[in-house]
């Protein structure tokens, strides 16, 4: 083979490779995601300057320290042995890590990040039983020095995420943070609690986070329409932490007035569980635009997902901002449940209240058009004070029966349930089903 043959072969191979080389959706969506997550560069530069200054100062301190210690090596070893780790910052290398302060040990078990959702699994172990009724927490999380969550004076047991008490002194949960404004492929995560289960202290972690690219993409590109409108669904991405796709909805001149209603999407799996949205998107009449949908991950046992259009009246709350109180006069049963009205959306059925030594379990289900919002209700004691719910792993919304738990109560004490009028969903009959790739 001579040079001319080789040259021709290479040119031919090049032509074949270049044919049809249009950027695929995978690449285009990554470019868009990257562009949408670009941080403020001026802020980054300020941060870099501060870091440089910090490194220089830290280096100088280290040099002075090293020179001092070198002269006194026996003392150094002795001194190091006597150092205690209280409220210290740890550097993570992908393994579980812990910090103990005030007798409360906080362990970061695992950090997962799919390019949108950051999930931090953690465990709190306290020397004493955890007071979940009054023990609030204060937390700041940063990615590359930029604040992604700040709940400094949260008045809840845990400001974000979900979890449960596995023992009286152990709480296990997950912090869930949608990274909507800054989504780099990898970053340095700082987690800093200054208050945990009511105790002030310092529980800080610094750890590297890298995007897990495990994802299935479904080339769905579905279009469904009727006289009410046209729904268009783009490629769908399923990760262990989230479900993402783009949709466009165009109102038609059907029965429903687009000037009065907003269109939203509802995602329901084949077991009638509704996926929670991280950032719900609604679209009104006028020029239709494409919107991103960020929802929670589909459960592992789900096979299909139904994407439904629902209409809501955005002015509903203006006229329905009131409480509805229902007093429990007798123990509810499945045959004779206690109904808690929720306006046009429907109602809640309480089928059982079980008084146990350490807790009170309320069994209920929702009946109506908006199961997601209808899950909310409160309970007042005889003095008219709201009783706090015990922390528990949040179940997905749906029509299935479920439970919520209060602290221990006297079976004879009167209970008052509080609900609110809830916006009803109108379904214009536009939906499509997709098979979830596994």
């Amino acid at each position, binding site marked *: *083979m*001579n*040079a*001319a*043959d*080789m*040259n021709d*072969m*290479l*040119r031919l*191979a*090049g032509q074949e*490779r*270049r044919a049809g*080389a*249009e*950027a*695929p959706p*995978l*690449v*285009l969506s*990554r*470019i868009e*995601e*990257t*562009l949408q997550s*670009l941080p*403020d*560069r*001026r802020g*980054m*530069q300020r941060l870099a300057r501060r870091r440089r200054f910090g490194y220089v100062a830290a280096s100088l301190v280290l040099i002075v320290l090293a020179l001092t210690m070198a002269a006194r090596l026996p003392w150094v070893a002795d001194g190091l042995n006597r150092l205690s780790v209280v409220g210290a910052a740890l550097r993570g290398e992908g393994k579980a890590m812990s910090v103990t302060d005030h007798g409360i040990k906080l362990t970061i078990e695992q950090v997962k990040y799919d390019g949108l959702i950051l999930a931090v699994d953690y465990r709190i172990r306290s020397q004493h039983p955890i007071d979940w009724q009054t023990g609030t927490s204060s937390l700041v999380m940063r990615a590359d020095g930029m604040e992604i969550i700040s709940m400094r004076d949260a008045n809840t047991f845990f400001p974000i995420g979900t979890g449960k008490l596995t023992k009286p002194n152990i709480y296990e949960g997950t912090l869930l943070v949608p990274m909507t404004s800054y989504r*780099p*492929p990898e970053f340095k995560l700082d987690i800093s609690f200054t208050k945990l289960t009511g105790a002030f202290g310092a529980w800080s972690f610094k750890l590297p986070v890298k995007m897990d*690219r495990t994802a299935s993409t479904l080339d769905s590109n579905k279009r469904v329409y009727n006289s009410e409108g046209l729904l268009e669904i783009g490629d769908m991405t399923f990760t262990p932490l989230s479900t993402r796709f783009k949709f466009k909805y165009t109102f038609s001149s059907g029965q429903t007035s687009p000037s009065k209603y907003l269109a939203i999407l509802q995602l329901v799996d084949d077991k009638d569980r509704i996926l929670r949205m991280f950032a719900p998107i609604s679209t009104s009449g006028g020029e239709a635009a494409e919107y991103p949908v960020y929802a929670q991950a589909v459960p592992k046992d789900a096979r299909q997902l139904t994407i439904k259009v629902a209409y809501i009246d955005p002015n509903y709350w203006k006229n329905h901002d009131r409480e509805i109180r229902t007093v429990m006069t007798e123990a509810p049963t499945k045959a004779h449940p206690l109904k808690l009205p929720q306006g046009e959306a429907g109602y809640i059925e309480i089928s059982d209240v079980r008084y146990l030594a350490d807790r009170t379990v309320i069994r209920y289900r929702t009946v109506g058009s908006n199961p997601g919002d209808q899950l909310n209700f409160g309970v007042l004691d005889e003095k008219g004070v709201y009783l706090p719910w015990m922390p528990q792993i949040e179940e997905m919304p749906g029509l299935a029966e479920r439970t919520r738990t209060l602290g221990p109560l006297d079976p004879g004490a009167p209970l008052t349930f509080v609900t609110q009028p809830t916006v009803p969903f109108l379904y214009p009959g536009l939906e499509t089903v997709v098979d979830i790739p596994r």
Partner: protein
Amino acid sequence: MTELAWDTDVRLAADGDREAFARLVRAMSGEMYRMARTLLHSDADCADAIQEAILQAYRGMGKLREPAFFKTWCMRILIRECGRIKRRVLPVALPQAYEGEAGRPQRMPDLDLQAAVERLEEPLQTTVRLHYWADLPLERIAELTEVPAGTVKSRLHRARKQLAAWLGEGDEEGDVGYERC
């Protein structure tokens, strides 16, 4: 995008305007993908490389002195990033059968050309890919890889000679260049 609009956006982007930077990247997205595809094996790797190149370019925009060099500068970053990703991926090994007895290469006319290009050492491999796969002329490759055009030419010559040795009977004949300048 007109030249004036492009220049304006580059200056705005250098001044920290995110939207202007995004417009520039969107305008180059096809070219960036084709470049990445030239150097990498999978679309997932291409997406990784482009994403990292965008972030690096964005972070470094303040250092860009001449707007006219923006595209070249971005492509350089992308090529470097593709190289980094390629090093991370295991090299494609040729089957044992391609080695003759006593280690002498046998004549294998059906040896896949692409596998042979994979086997080339750097920087010969990237030069071949940029010239033949991406169809870039010598001057442009010289600009992107920051070496003289003569060096690009000699790299291509060495690469063809090596490929001919692997795929054919003997060495590339003569010193004639077949590249478009």
